[in-house]
């Protein structure tokens, strides 16, 4: 796994996603507060606006990338057996990709299988 997932690139990915996550965490609560949503219909309509949906899609994309680097760092610090480390990193990647697919379904298709 070379590229944006290792070394200096991972460090950079963590920082760039952090900046987006920070901006989102300030802008989104303020936006939702100003819009003063108090019903399901309003909430659904707001989230259907393309700019809004894309802002959320990008938020989760950044979140998953950010979590990859962060949790990867923890695993590298505490799991030293090479094969075990590889297995856990693979499970982490699988888990995060699954979450990303799930949330994309929720945001873009208005469904997510269950519920």
């Amino acid at each position: 796994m070379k590229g944006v997932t290792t070394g200096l690139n991972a460090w950079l990915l963590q920082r760039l996603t952090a900046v987006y996550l920070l901006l989102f965490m300030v802008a989104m609560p303020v936006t939702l507060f100003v819009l003063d949503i108090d019903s399901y219909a309003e909430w659904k309509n707001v989230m259907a606006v393309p700019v809004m949906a894309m802002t959320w899609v990008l938020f989760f994309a950044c979140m998953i990338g950010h979590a990859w680097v962060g949790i990867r760092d923890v695993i590298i610090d505490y799991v030293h057996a090479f094969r075990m480390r590889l297995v856990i990193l693979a499970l982490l990647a699988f888990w995060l990709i699954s979450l990303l697919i799930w949330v994309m379904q929720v945001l873009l298709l208005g469904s997510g299988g269950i519920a």
Partner: protein
Amino acid sequence: MLDKRRPVFLNLLQIRMPATAMASILHRFSGVLLFFALPGFIYLLQLSLNSERGFDSIAGLFDSLVIRVLVIGLLWSLIHHFFAGIRFLLLDVEAGISKTTARATARLVTFGSLLITIVIVGVCL
């Protein structure tokens, strides 16, 4: 692979940590908590978007004490991770890297985040 002779000591319970180390380990700890909360958050988003019944049921979740404690813990995690993260980004661009400033901002982040969490919880309860 790693040089096996390198001394490695990562037992967090036995290391006496200065304020900067405390802010750092809490940043990691809160990040791990947020990682575990991710599916819960996505589930809530799905619940809120999929049906009116789901949307209305979210408020009811907060009746449960377990959920409340979880939410308070995650709120602290998010707030600490947020401010400690800003601090680290500033350190990256070499802002506030002198020992005294770094220690002061570490304390500010650690105690400030706790205080903000308590205030938010107090206002909401």
